[in-house]
């Protein structure tokens, strides 16, 4: 028909980018957060397999890459956390969760839900066990905080 219906590039325009009322999150500096220290966590897991798993859990929950712009940092942190969580024996999970404070339990919940997003092999079963224990410690409120958090781990 007429010539100006040939191009459909207008369909690829993201209209929301040009909305002047668009809500933009405030950016906090995320450059300093590198995620938990890999070497430290590995050594704690390997050296004293029973006693220092608690220490490994505390170490891996340090320095969460909450604001980091680099996706790799976040993926690496998630992988590390999953490694530590899977090396716990089922009976020790409850004690480990008790040793965390409120912010620790919230952070653990965030990692658990992050882990649910990308299931692999046996990870979901382990994460579900951790989820049950973390829920009894943090209550439904900790899940609400995971869902409402704009800065995800």
């Amino acid at each position, binding site marked *: 028909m007429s010539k100006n219906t040939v191009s459909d590039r207008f369909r690829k325009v993201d209209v929301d980018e040009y909305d002047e*009322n668009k*809500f933009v999150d405030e950016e906090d500096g995320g450059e300093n957060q590198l995620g938990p220290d890999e070497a430290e966590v590995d050594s704690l897991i390997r050296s004293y397999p029973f006693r220092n798993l608690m220490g490994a859990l505390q170490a891996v929950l340090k320095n969460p890459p909450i604001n980091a712009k680099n996706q790799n940092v976040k993926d690496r942190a998630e992988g590390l956390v999953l490694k530590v969580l899977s090396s716990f024996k089922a009976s020790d999970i409850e004690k480990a969760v008790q040793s965390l404070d409120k912010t620790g339990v*919230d952070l653990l919940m965030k990692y658990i839900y992050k882990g649910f997003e990308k299931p692999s092999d046996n990870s979901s079963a382990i994460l579900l066990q951790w989820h049950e224990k973390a829920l009894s410690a*943090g*209550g439904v*409120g*900790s899940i*609400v*905080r995971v869902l409402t*958090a704009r800065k995800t781990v």
Partner: protein
Amino acid sequence: MSYHSFLLEPISCHAWNKDRTQIAMCPNNHEVHIYKKEGSNWNKIHVLKEHNGQVTGIDWAPESNRIVTCGTDRNAYVWTLKGDAWKPTLVILRINRAARCVKWSPKENKFAVGSGSRLISVCYFEQDNDWWVCKHIKKPIRSTILCLDWHPNNVLLAAGSCDFKCRIFSAYIKEVEEKPAPTAWGSKMPFGEVMFESTGTAGWVHGVCFSDSGNRVAWASHDILPFKSDPAQTFLTSETLPLLCVTFITENSLVAAGHDCYPVLFVYDSNKAALSFGGKLDVPKQSAQKGMTARERFQNLDKKATTDSKEAVLESLHKNSISQISILNGGKARCAKFCTTGMDGGMAIWDVKTLESAMKDLKIV
């Protein structure tokens, strides 16, 4: 504790008159129903039909006996009682989205409306032209205003919004009042000035409340319950479902309620500057635990895959989320009774004294 079920639809909002004999509420439609308590029954005496959209906020001014309502039709009406009927006056709010909440100021010479157009309309009556005029507070609000509360000095206004912040604005209108005295929140208060902006919450702010003295403010966010008493700011992470409304019952105690269907008490300790969970305020269930027969156990296992004898019925007084709390007697300083309405269409009146005696380790400071 008394519970009255008005209807099956949720009660969107409610307001009491001065002597607490009449309640105005919106049964989730375009109308406002006014019920009067006669004996032990509630009789509907008036139906106010003027809005074209759901009525989202009602406030009844105790001294001047005027009702202000606002709705999703972007309008607000001020109703005055003429003889036996309520006559509406339209207020032009100049908003292009729904109005969400409305509150009379303590002196009842102005009211504030929070709306989805990311601004607060502060309206006052202009004698010369005989109509209500409004001024807007726009900056720095970036999303819908969900809740409002006035400071006792008639000038400061706390607003909770969907941009995750609670702010205190100055709503000083020089046409209707003189300059306010300095407060704990600041001394220079031109119209629209932000006296305080919260940080740290990551959820919508559903409810906000000033204490009786106005020096403290608490707000219920979707994730936590923060509390600010100059200069300290503290918060309490809730372990329950989000709270939707909060009010002070004394200077140090708060009652909040939300999706968990029961009100909860929180106590603030000013020595430790910390907020703590005081107790769950609800009717203790007197049900006897009857033993389960083997047949019932098997049936439970078969039908519901559970071995518990607990029924799937809520044990609280309200059967659905509580959306609004209002103080009936005693003001925010020494509240004796408060009222909650919710999405189950019911209204419950709670007596603080009976609650204190019923729950043994409950302490209302």
